[in-house]
């Protein structure tokens, strides 16, 4: 199959060259996705999807554009390509728009990232139904349960890229996820809800369905009887599952595009000790079985481990070829892969004990951050920390501050990495955080 994808990508490169492109990069991809959703004792939705697409990036007379289509009929592809060239010619020339140079893709690592489990293609209805029924049976086993929706999602995707200056590559991966969302009767008209899902490229690496179902119910039960907490300045402990999103916000503008456009509080931080020495974030595309592992990025740049922050010092930003050229920065990669956040040997219990009092954040609700200034304000759900223990559940609160300042006050990190994400973070502890509540 990958030979076929490569051949079609090569064909698209040739089509574009004949239509007038000086340089072109073509990517073909296809995927199969199956989902089973099961609710309260019965199968509710089955979806089976196969999808395909072709994307081309063309460089014509110093001009650049990118195009994507799902219509792979060869005659219409010819129209698609010639229209792409025509659009490109109508743009303005830009000296910084150049195809990824050879030196960035020559030394591609030759390692097996272990992203394919052939058993995923062999999954049948009976196996998926068995998981659904196991999870549903456990997730609904409580008197307060109103409804639970169980999901099993599996599939595979593959892609191939070819460029006119010699790049050629292909990739393939599989996935399988299962879990549930549970809704419980709470005070008055309120419903408490929570869920848990586990996933992996390999079916064999998944925790048992029963364990996942138990976690989903437990998560929902922990939300019962929550109330608004106080307006207070105190310690914030962010659990490992919620920490990934906060790391994502921190790194949001840590890239050449934002810096070059004047929209990043990371602009002058390269080489600086900008954050607490407890903060380390490494971008690792070569992690075996990682959710965002890859041998080359979207531009074809060979994958390598890139330290972003080491002990609070900013080592690298995400730099693609275009904005890198514009900003005078050497390219690293324009898109993040697996982000590995530094850990310690402290357990959650030890962390809560040391914190003594504060707010334990288990999930976010809305909110945003200004990439230019780092100012943020986020809705939270979680628990009060009382006498070093997880206390009463709280909700309807905001946490507000500045991201750079916040990560300057990162006081502790845990040993408990949440594994079902491409941001692999432990529990994070911040001092002196502004909470608004009652």
């Amino acid at each position: 199959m990958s030979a076929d994808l490569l051949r079609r990508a090569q064909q698209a490169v040739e089509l574009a060259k004949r239509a007038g492109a000086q340089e072109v990069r073509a990517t073909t991809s296809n995927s199969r996705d199956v989902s089973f959703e099961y609710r309260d004792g019965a199968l509710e939705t089955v979806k089976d999807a196969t999808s395909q697409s072709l994307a081309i990036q063309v460089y014509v007379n110093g001009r650049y554009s990118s195009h994507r289509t799902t219509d792979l009929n060869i005659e219409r592809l010819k129209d698609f390509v010639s229209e792409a060239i025509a659009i490109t010619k109508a743009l303005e020339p830009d000296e910084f728009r150049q195809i990824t140079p050879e030196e960035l893709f020559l030394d591609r690592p030759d390692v097996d990232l272990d992203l394919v489990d052939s058993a995923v293609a062999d999954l049948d209805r009976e196996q998926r139904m068995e998981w659904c029924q196991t999870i549903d049976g456990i997730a609904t086993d409580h008197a307060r349960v109103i409804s639970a929706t169980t999901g099993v999602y599996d599939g595979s995707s593959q892609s191939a890229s070819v460029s006119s200056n010699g790049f050629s590559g292909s990739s393939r991966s599989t996935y399988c996820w299962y879990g549930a969302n549970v809704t419980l009767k709470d005070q008055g008209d309120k419903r408490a809800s929570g869920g848990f899902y586990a996933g992996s490229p390999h079916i064999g690496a998944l925790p048992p369905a029963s364990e996942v179902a138990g976690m989903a119910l437990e998560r929902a039960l922990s939300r019962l009887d929550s109330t608004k907490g106080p307006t207070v300045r105190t310690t914030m402990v962010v659990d490992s599952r919620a920490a990934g999103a906060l790391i994502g916000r921190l790194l949001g503008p840590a890239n050449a595009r934002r810096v070059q456009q004047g929209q990043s509080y990371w602009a002058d931080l390269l080489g600086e000790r900008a954050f607490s020495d407890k903060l380390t974030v490494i971008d690792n595309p070569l992690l075996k079985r990682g959710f965002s592992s890859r041998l080359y990025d979207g531009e074809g740049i060979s994958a390598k481990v890139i330290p972003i922050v080491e002990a609070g010092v900013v080592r690298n930003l995400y730099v693609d070829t275009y904005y890198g050229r514009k900003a005078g920065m050497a390219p690293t990669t324009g898109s993040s892969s697996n982000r590995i956040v530094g850990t310690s040997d402290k357990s959650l219990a030890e962390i809560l004990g040391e914190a003594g009092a504060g707010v334990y954040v288990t999930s976010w609700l809305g909110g945003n951050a200004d990439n230019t200034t780092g100012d943020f304000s986020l809705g939270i759900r979680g628990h009060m920390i009382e006498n070093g223990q997880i206390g009463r559940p709280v909700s309807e609160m905001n946490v507000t501050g500045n991201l750079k300042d916040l990560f300057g006050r990162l006081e502790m990190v845990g040993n408990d990495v949440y594994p079902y994400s491409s941001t692999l973070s432990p529990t994070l502890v911040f001092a002196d955080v502004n909470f608004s509540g009652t």
Partner: protein
Amino acid sequence: MTIKRRDFLGTVAAGSAIVTMPGFLSGCGVQAATSFGRNAPVNPFMEWFGVDQATVARVMSELTSRGADAADVYFQHSRSNSLTLEDGIVSSANSGIRQGVGLRVVIGEQTGYAFTEDLTLPSMLAAARTAAAIATGTQVVAPQSFNPLAAGDLYTTTVPWADVGVEQKLPVMKFVEAQAKGKDPSIEKVAVYWADGDERVMIATLDGRLVTDNRPMTRLTVVVTAKKGDETQTGYANIAAREEFSWYTEERLHKMVDEAVERTLIQFEAIRPPAGEMPVILAAGASGILLHEAIGHGMEADFNRKGTSIYTDMMGKKVAESFVTVVDQANIPGERGALNYDDEGNVAGRTVMVENGILTSYLHDEISAKQYGIKPTGSGRRQSYKYSPMPRMTCTFMEDGPHTRDEIIAAVDHGIICETYTNGQVQIGAGDFTFYVKNGWLVEKGKITAPIKDVNIIGNGPEALRQITMVANDARLDTGGWTCGKNGQSVPVSQGIPTVLVSNMTVGGENVG
């Protein structure tokens, strides 16, 4: 040459067969081609997708071969274009074509779904069989042909976006950039982002309807970055609609630029409000985000038929003051959230969710409407042929109330007024919702005072509705490019509201003692 001759001979033979045995052919399932091919003009949508009535009927028959309460075949072709202006030049364009057909079969609350991007009959039949696999019954009677319903006229364009060249759009973007740059010496960078698209939809349903809709969309965004001393601030504005190129008048562009520049520059003076509970005034327009999050999502009937929404047991009950009326309305010409027909082929009209303070209707798709024993409200929407439809909002707003904006501001001793927003979210079961305020002002002793920025506001849906104590008479829809996400599907929406006072919500802030 040999092959051609054989084809020629074959054609003669077939042609003579047609002449001599018309009755036999029509009995063979070609009668759709006869009745429509001769008496009705060729449906341009059928022609576009390369299918005819008989083909669609064949697919529908396969789709319902194991039983169905409802089923639809959803053809979609969409093309989108975008352009980027940064650092003074338009040096990047992007286009996308998505085409496919989604096959759905519904039995009770069960749905089987498959799609294919290959619109040949064998591929569509294979996808239909996959979707049908959820059912375990026997073939239902599928229509032999589909009855075309009248096309809607909410967003008819004279020039489709496909016919508008880059050379026409470039000057508009350059104009916006020049206007913004000239507004203030502190403005260092201006970026302009253009987007347009056409979408063709054709839906054939098990009950024999054939619905077609051409859906244009455009959005223009300007981002302004200004620097004063060591401080940099960024702000933006955008406008969006189901309109054509001529919609971008100079007046509209000037207004957008003015808003972006004002929002950016005011941030140099803006502070964070004090944290905690306080009265919150929502300025007319974009503050409709309150309705979208606090009540709209919770009123989508899929959550209520499953019992997972906080509004599940509130139908017919008083949920707000009598001057509060909240509507979701798709038939507003040209709006981003406007729709002639929903994605199940039902007329998308006006649904009053709260009338004079009483909860009156959920937003229904066909599955929930059947369960509640009522007609669908035309709220079944999907992102594309890749997805099954579900109840969604279109243009959500509150109608005018008895107060004035001045009266509302005068009534607040210590609170804030919110003007622009970036995003919001809601938890359906608990009812907690948030929206992020980009720009606003402190209100002290009945007067607007210092500018504020970057605070999240959090509240609880039913409580916030009860706490709407004043509603002004200045309702308007926001023209911003809002997109609503639910269960992994994004759809364009509009929102609006008059100036309202919510007597108590929790405001994010700093300076906690």
